[in-house]
């Protein structure tokens, strides 16, 4: 039974919002005092010398099959295990731990399922619980789809950016070398502007927070950039200018400043004067995200492999957390939780097949301490969008070629995945979140369209 919740069954907890909140709190309350590990949620501390108890993959379509891994750090013939897979209070598997045991599970019913593990060293019994999630794709629906630009030429959309008023999306298309505005009510492409890249590599886009200017940064092979500002009607506001940084990715920064990151490193700059305020060298960042309060900047790094928190103004490092390499995964996309207390990092690997290829790490935003790491997909994704937070702050969503994933903020696990297959093939999609409803906008290069997706849960 979960610590502090005697008499309450896991399914009861997980089935309610309050329960979800309680589950969420458990790690904060010091239930895991074993330091950063690759473990899933730990409900009672195991002796640090024991080893680990984890599920190989914690999310999947029904029938969802996986394994609970009970792996001692040294041979544990004296230890015995019991595993209750179906929450009926009776153990379904039991035996000696020995060198380690993998217990298979299978769940057909969508939603969370708790796996209860008892470990007994002959003197003490330790209770562990792991939660796995079976996908419910029915809550996700495609509301509308709007073709963007000529369908005769394949699209290659960058990240769509919501206007400061929340009523329109702007996006650049590298392949068709154009800038588009798509109004959201109703979903209609209302403007397009040719954007000759002149042999430049990629284009990033941002929308000013104070006004409705649309900023476009195109990167050059010589690691410089071309900068152009448009009105929300996509009228050029000034001549194209050169920058000393290449981007091409843009992210809003503090006090009206912007970050450019990518080829030339991470640059904090003034979008009006193009003055560089601070910069970090190339390869310093693979994704960035500004904290909700604007004070900090989250950075994912491939080398060294980990997540860093920087002061958003000085770019000075506050903490850096190397991520565990249990599954040979590296961090790619990062985001803050809506309340700013946690950090999400999507980890990806290079391994095809049944090995864990994508994971979710949750870190404490203040300390950088890893709260949990779980595998969420077998096989590595080849495309991964940004992480975006839903309007009601219950969900964080992203896309891969396997579909759109929706992480339940309360459960810290993906809860829904849908619209995969032909809809979202390899290397297609970027995503933005609505500011007025639990809706997301997926820029689907494969279909040259913007798709509005709603979560009805």
């Amino acid at each position, binding site marked *: 039974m979960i610590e502090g919740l005697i008499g309450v069954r896991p399914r009861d907890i997980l089935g309610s919002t309050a329960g979800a909140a309680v589950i969420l709190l458990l790690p904060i309350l010091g239930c895991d005092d074993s330091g950063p590990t690759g473990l899933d949620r730990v409900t009672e501390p195991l002796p640090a010398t024991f080893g680990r108890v984890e599920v190989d993959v914690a999310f999947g379509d029904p029938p969802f*099959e996986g*394994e609970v891994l009970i*792996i001692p750090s040294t*041979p544990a*013939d004296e230890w015995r295990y019991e595993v209750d*897979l179906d929450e009926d209070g009776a153990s*379904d*598997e*039991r*035996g*000696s731990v*020995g*060198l*380690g*045991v*993998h*217990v*298979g*599970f*299978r769940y057909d019913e969508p939603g969370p399922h708790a796996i209860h593990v008892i470990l007994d060293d002959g003197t003490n019994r330790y209770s562990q619980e792991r939660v796995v999630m079976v996908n419910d794709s029915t809550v996700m629906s495609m509301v509308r789809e709007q073709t963007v630009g000529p369908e005769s030429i394949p699209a290659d959309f960058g990240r769509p950016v919501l206007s400061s008023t929340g009523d329109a999306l702007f996006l650049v298309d590298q392949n068709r070398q154009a800038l588009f505005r798509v109004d959201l009510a109703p979903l209609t492409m209302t403007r397009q502007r040719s954007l000759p890249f002149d042999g430049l590599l990629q284009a990033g886009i941002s929308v000013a927070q104070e006004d409705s200017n649309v900023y476009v940064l195109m990167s050059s092979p010589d690691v410089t950039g071309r900068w152009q500002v448009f009105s929300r009607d996509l009228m050029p506001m000034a001549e194209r200018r050169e920058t000393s940084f290449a981007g091409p990715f843009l992210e809003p920064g503090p006090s009206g400043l912007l970050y450019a990151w990518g080829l030339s490193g991470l640059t904090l700059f003034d979008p009006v004067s193009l003055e560089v305020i601070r910069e970090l060298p190339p390869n310093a960042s693979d994704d960035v995200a500004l904290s909700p309060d604007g004070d900090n900047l989250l950075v994912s790094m491939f080398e060294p492999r980990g997540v860093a928190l920087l002061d958003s103004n000085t770019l000075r490092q506050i903490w850096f957390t190397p991520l565990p390499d249990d599954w040979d995964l590296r961090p790619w996309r990062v985001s803050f939780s809506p309340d700013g207390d946690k950090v999400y990092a999507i980890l990806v690997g290079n*391994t*095809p*097949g*049944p*090995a864990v290829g994508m994971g979710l790490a949750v870190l404490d935003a203040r300390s950088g301490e890893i709260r949990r790491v779980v595998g969420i997909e077998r096989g590595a994704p080849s495309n991964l969008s940004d992480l975006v937070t839903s309007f009601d702050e219950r969900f964080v969503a992203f896309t891969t070629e396997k579909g759109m994933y929706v992480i339940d903020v309360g459960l810290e696990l993906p809860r829904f995945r849908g619209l995969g297959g032909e809809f979202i093939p390899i290397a297609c999609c970027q995503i933005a979140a609505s500011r007025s409803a639990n809706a997301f906008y997926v820029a689907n290069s494969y279909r040259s369209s913007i798709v509005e997706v709603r979560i009805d849960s």
Partner: protein
Amino acid sequence: MKPTAQIALVLLMGVLGCDGSGEEAGPTAPPSPSGPAPSVEVTLGFGDAPLEGTLFLTPPPGSENWRYSVDLDGDGTPDHEGILGLRIGFRYRFAQAGIHSIRTVLRGPDEHRQDVESLVIVNDQGPLRIIAANRVQPLDPMWVSFEGITTSSAGDAIYVANYSGGSLHRLDPTTLSVTGVIEEMSYSIEGLVVSPLDSFLFATYKYTHVAVVDLHDFEIERFQERAGVGGFFIHGIDERRALLGGGNQLSHVDMRNGAVLDVFRAPGDDFTYTWHFDVTSDGGRAAVIVRGEHSAIHIVDPAIMESLGTVPLGPMEYPQLVAFDPSGTRLYVMGNTEEGEALFVAYHLATGTILRSLRLGRSYCSGYCVANPTATIRSGRYVAFEWNGGAYFIDTELDLPRYATQLPGSNVGFSVSASPIEDVFYFLRSDGLIQKLTIDD
């Protein structure tokens, strides 16, 4: 029957779903009234010490109430016992070099008993002894990529080729020193073979060129660009003819005039092609890897160049290398599963059954797959398989990999040939290092 052979045969039962109907199949598990038995698999069957893996018991759909006991350390006492629900796995770890046995007893609901033995082999490089080594110096240090190797039929010369340098080197088999060089072989040279009476050396090239070298004069007799046959692998039939594979077809070619005498065209679409092949010592059968949408291994009669059938691939999605055992009754195959794991499989050809299937860990033959990748030692005891820059040695008495050199990675080639007069292998590393290796049993 030797004890080791008995172990080998018992292993098959249940582990691989072998029906045991082969002529040497030994003890046979009768069909269980309880229905299909759970499968027993080990995740890693060969490796360096300490070797760690997991033994998985997986019930077939609908089966229930199978009881199991697993003895991981061979002491006769079960380490794990229970009733099989869903899939369950038990970790093992072996530190001592040699063959280790994991014994699983399964009892069905009707108390029908099945015993399964899974072998796990911990590598021992101790018996692998290098008795001579030399570095063949490339003519131009800028172009170093040695790949082809073959030994004369009399065992008095070794020939190696530099792919990017386009040179052929003759070596003394005792000192491994270079005794002759032909500089103008043209680059992209791949597989080499000496004709049975040592009159000629036949070479195949990546871009389907072919060359014939007169070994009496050590001069190029014939070079044909874009011959359109083969591309990588070659087997000499007599002083004129050879089989060439690695292209769209396996070709029977008169090397002296370039005439294509017959072909085995792999069934499939335009993207289907042949890959590595091997021929039995009597020349009566060829095993040909065919790649395309669906990989296959065809057993081909070289006399008529027609497929006599295919062997089951099991979980092997991408076969890479094939070799017959010396008797020609068994076929050894190395390849990869869809997930990128290396797999060794031994087939019994008469029955079409899988004798052995062993997982070797995650690795791919990628980037540097050599054109002379297998060889059988003179005594017939071991067959060497080049893999990831090193080699596995298949023990033909066990039908299992018994030893392996270090496997440094896929960016190094490690071509192999065997002496016909002594029990040694010659290995050619892509940087020109040639090693003469024997196995001390």
